[in-house]
């Protein structure tokens, strides 16, 4: 299924009897040939989807390992894309654990999830974690697309109060960390996310004049910020660094857009705001993520479906209790049943997304084939608050570099970050180590 809006934007390469659509920006910066071969391939994309409060693990983990496994109750909705999935068991995110810092598993679960770093326990004075895997990739390949990375969510940050046992709310609402002290705020309103992705400004003379003005304003404030930074104390300088980084990123984007003035208008109705219906909200965010990947507006994304420790009510699937409250089920069967319904609800939305990616063809492959979508939680069982044997799925074939359709069980305490190293390799973003990684994750291919 090729959307009509892409045609105007894409260079269509003809050769070997196949038309391979390549997004325009790729033409400017050649994508690496991931799996070798002479032919130019569509780029690999990578997303991390987070769901809070752990899972009801008995209904998550398949009984058998290898390719002959049944999807248990929670992951049943993924049946149609089962052959594009890896269920990865046994992975641990050790820095979710206290290591002497006491309670606060929810805050740690989210902010250690993609960083593999120990979270500095603070109400705010000295927030510190580590750089998250998506931002490592954004730094390496982000310059090839309009947006280095995309951060989506469904819950706004906390509005007040304390989120988790002495940890600033930053930690339980942010999964993506550009530096070890700077979280990447997420967009939760599909309307605003849509406008951000697809409004390139005004075409023609007026448009280029506005771009010129915007550029001048940025030049102006860049100088202001540099000058100001020089006169500040070290901690304040860090705040100005955030500002300067953002200015530079926008200047780059304006520069790139200048070469590509015609803006894509996707064949997709502009969302009107945050839908009342949670499922619809989630699906809209998935839709936008799919559109962003399809148009190669970004190759790296995170999506926090609900903030960690969320106490959301799921009355619409007959689970009126608060999610977090329920997750402390204390062995109560009724509560566990409700938990697995919530878990399945979220997987149902994931299935919608994966099937959508699978339905978008890119040459001989599909967008899902060219993607790596990791889905999971930084807690295993919400009652036990354990950070090992995490529920982790990897969907998509990373451009034919991952052999899917299997359940792999890794040795206990295998760092989740090992998976990240392997994913970064496939995105042309290799690093030697990240957080507590101890090597590449075996057996993916």
């Amino acid at each position: 299924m090729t959307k009509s809006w892409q045609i105007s934007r894409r260079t269509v390469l003809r050769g070997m009897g196949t038309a391979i659509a390549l997004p325009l920006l790729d033409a400017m910066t050649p994508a690496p040939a991931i799996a070798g071969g002479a032919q130019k391939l569509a780029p690999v994309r990578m997303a991390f989807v987070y769901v809070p409060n752990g899972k009801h693990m008995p209904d998550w983990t398949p009984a058998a390992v290898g390719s002959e496994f049944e999807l248990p109750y929670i992951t049943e909705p993924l049946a149609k894309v089962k052959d594009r999935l890896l269920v990865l068991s046994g992975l641990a995110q050790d820095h979710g654990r206290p290591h002497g810092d006491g309670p606060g598993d929810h805050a740690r679960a989210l902010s250690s999830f993609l960083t593999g770093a120990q979270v500095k326990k603070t109400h705010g004075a000295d927030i510190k974690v580590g750089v998250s895997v998506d931002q490592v990739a954004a730094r390496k390949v982000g310059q090839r697309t309009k947006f280095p990375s995309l951060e989506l969510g469904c819950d706004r940050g906390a509005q007040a109060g304390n989120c988790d046992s002495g940890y600033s709310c930053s930690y339980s609402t942010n999964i993506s960390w550009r530096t070890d002290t700077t979280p990447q705020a997420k967009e939760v309103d599909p309307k605003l996310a849509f406008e951000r992705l697809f409004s390139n400004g005004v075409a023609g003379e007026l448009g280029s004049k506005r771009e010129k003005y915007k550029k001048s304003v940025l030049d102006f404030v860049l100088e202001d910020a540099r000058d100001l930074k020089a006169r500040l104390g070290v901690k304040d300088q860090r705040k100005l660094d955030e500002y300067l980084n953002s200015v530079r990123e926008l200047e780059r984007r304006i520069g790139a857009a200048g070469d590509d003035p015609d803006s894509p208008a996707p064949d997709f109705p502009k969302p009107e705001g945050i839908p009342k219906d949670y499922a619809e909200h989630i699906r809209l965010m998935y839709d936008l993520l799919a559109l962003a990947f399809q148009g190669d507006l970004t190759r790296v994304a995170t999506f926090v479906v609900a903030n960690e420790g969320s106490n959301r009510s799921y009355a619409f699937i007959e689970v009126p209790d608060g999610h977090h409250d329920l997750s402390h089920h204390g062995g109560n069967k009724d509560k566990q049943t409700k938990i697995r319904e919530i878990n399945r609800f979220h997987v149902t939305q994931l299935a919608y997304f994966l099937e959508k990616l699978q339905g978008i063809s890119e040459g001989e492959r599909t967008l899902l084939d060219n993607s790596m979508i990791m889905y999971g939680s930084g807690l295993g069982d919400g009652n036990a608050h354990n950070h090992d044997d995490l529920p982790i799925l990897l969907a998509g074939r990373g451009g034919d570099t991952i052999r899917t359709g299997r359940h792999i069980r890794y040795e206990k305490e295998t760092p989740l970050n090992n998976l990240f190293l392997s994913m970064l390799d496939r995105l042309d973003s290799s690093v030697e180590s990240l957080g507590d990684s101890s090597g590449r994750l075996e057996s993916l291919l």
Partner: protein
Amino acid sequence: MRRPGPVRLSLVAMACIWPLAVRAADDDGAAERDAAALATFRGQVEPLLAQYCTKCHSGGEPKGELKLDLYLARAAVDQDREAWEKVAQKLHDREMPPEDQPQPDAAAREKMTAWIDAQLARFGGGQRDPGRVTIRRLNRNEYDNTIRDLVGVDFHPADDFPSDDVGYGFDNIGDVLSLPTILLEKYLAAAEQVAVRTLGTEQVNLVTGDTTGGRIIDGGARILTSEMEVRTKVRMFGSGDYMFRVRAYGEQAGDEPVKMAVYLDKQLVRRFDVSAVEAHPQLYEGWLQTRGGQHAYSIVFENDYYEPKKPEPNDRNLIVKEIELMGPYPPPFKRIIPREHTPEDRMQLAREIIGGVMARAFRRPVTPAEVDRVLSLVRMADREGENFNVAIGLGLQAILVSPHFLFRVELDPEPNNPDAIRTISDDELATRLGYFLWSSMPDDELFTLARLGKLRSGDQLERQARRMLADPKAQALVENFAGQWLQLRNLQTAAPDKGHYPDFDESLRRAMRKETELFFAAIMREDRSALDFIDGDFTFVNERLARHYGIADVKGEEFRKVQLDPQKRGGVLTHASVLTVTSNPTRTSPVKRGKWILENILGTPPPPPPPDVPELKEEAAGELTGSLRERMEQHRAKPACAVCHNRMDPLGFGLENYDGIGAWRTSEGPFEIDPSGELPGGQAFAGPQELKAILKARQDEFVRCLTEKMLTYGLGRGVEYSDRGAVQDIVKTVEQNDYKFSSLIIAIVHSDPFQKRRGKRSEP
């Protein structure tokens, strides 16, 4: 005669004492004091440190990289003040020694911290450490309010911004507020919006129909050679301010320049001397006000002159190259552009406007060089042919995206010297006041006092604080401080289950929040006792909320003040808002309610459980049974849980008469509600009223808690160990003033942390 204010006095005093104190170490008195301090240390403090601390904090691999043995050998606090302060803080807060280690008794703790405090106090010229606030980005509320007060448009652009992260319970903490790319994008877009809404960018020339008059010469220009006019019909889009532009020049002759008049519907709008000549035609711009519909627009040449007998030039003519009419422009633009300009004073006016806006936007005087930089953008737009409003608008955009606007900057002469304590400038103080009490920039009165250096003279500061509290803008303190302290904001996402609480709906949700806001506002505006927060015997309800509370005879949407039956309700603890945000969707949570009271009323949050608590495993002995309270008590029987839950749960049980959305109840299902409880230490209560009486009797703790919350909010940083002296003083002042709300605010704005700042310490 004006008497010098107390702060001024201390400033003078400080200037005298400071150098002496620094030199004190050299004189004999200091040597004696050193000797005495050393004796105390060796005799009393060192043995305690050796007994409780050095086991872990010494040797080759000291815990937390704190090598106490090294410090002990020197016994001097001067070189390692940060480390010592941390030691004192950890001891004071009972974070150290760890719970699995031998604990010093209270007297021993006191001995150690008192010695360290005394040593620390000898530095900094005897000045109290005022702390240091990290540069603060405007948060969403502050941004919206500042835009409103700066340019006069109230349209909430920050609704589109990502959430501000929360630290210390508030969303205005400098350290926590970050600036990711997405936010800068939004700032750029918002700045453009502000420029459009205040100055307009309407570029469409409404002059589209037939234009007549004069004689057409090169390039479509019209030459008027006798007293005549260029006319056209224009359709206006609606009532408002329009901008006209005429590009023209004159063929000059005689003893006066060409006179040109702009008319609308035969009414004179404005008259110009057109001294421009052919080589440099000028733009003549101005405003006119009119209604929508068809209008006659004309440019009239008023002073024809032709004396063929005289030597040349002897023929005066007006040449009109272009006529434009644009608009309507948004009404607020006149707040920014105070008058019309002539082609000659265009840039001068631009300089005045930009300089004025910048000084207010940056909340300080600006230098000519700073203004010049913005003006270069205005000139650029001018060169592009933009009209005056648009050119100014581009300058405005740059100002609104500048870090000097987006951040509240307090520049220090020695930013990295922790000993360099300074009193902040009047401008900085005005800004702190503005954002503390209004979540916005200072107004003209504050700015003026600051620029005159009078903000601190006499009782001016107190008068300003009172004036600000009485101003409608102080509603920001209600929404932002109370909204976060009492967690009213969390009501927005609370999701009581329809099945359990069929009564709950959106109008009730709104009413709940409104009640608590009105209650807080009443205490603030009527300057009541802060203790009313605990047990005020009145509240505000509309019909919806009155029905929820079982209060008769309240009709309609309007909120009104009502007296309460103290048996059932009174004070924020019994507000449906607070009771709902501390409940789960399907049930009450005595634990959450108890924790809420400890954190927000008593300021004694449950101590952090010892590290590495064994994870809670599934119950081996089957499910717990009975009422919620009975089940919880079975839980609490476990010693590991009891320590904290003995403090939290009874407080929550005292509020069990209120269900998960705050309605009064005496039973839950088959179980009678038992609202009695006993606090650690043996204080027992029979129900909510007695519980509140106990809390009210602990007014010291409450006032301290409220002070710390308010100070955190007012400063935009967490309250530190080093602030304890300031907090103590504020608490004392409030107690001496019958707990009046205003006394808390006034004491805070006079406190050292609010008045001063120091350089930054090295990184932890």
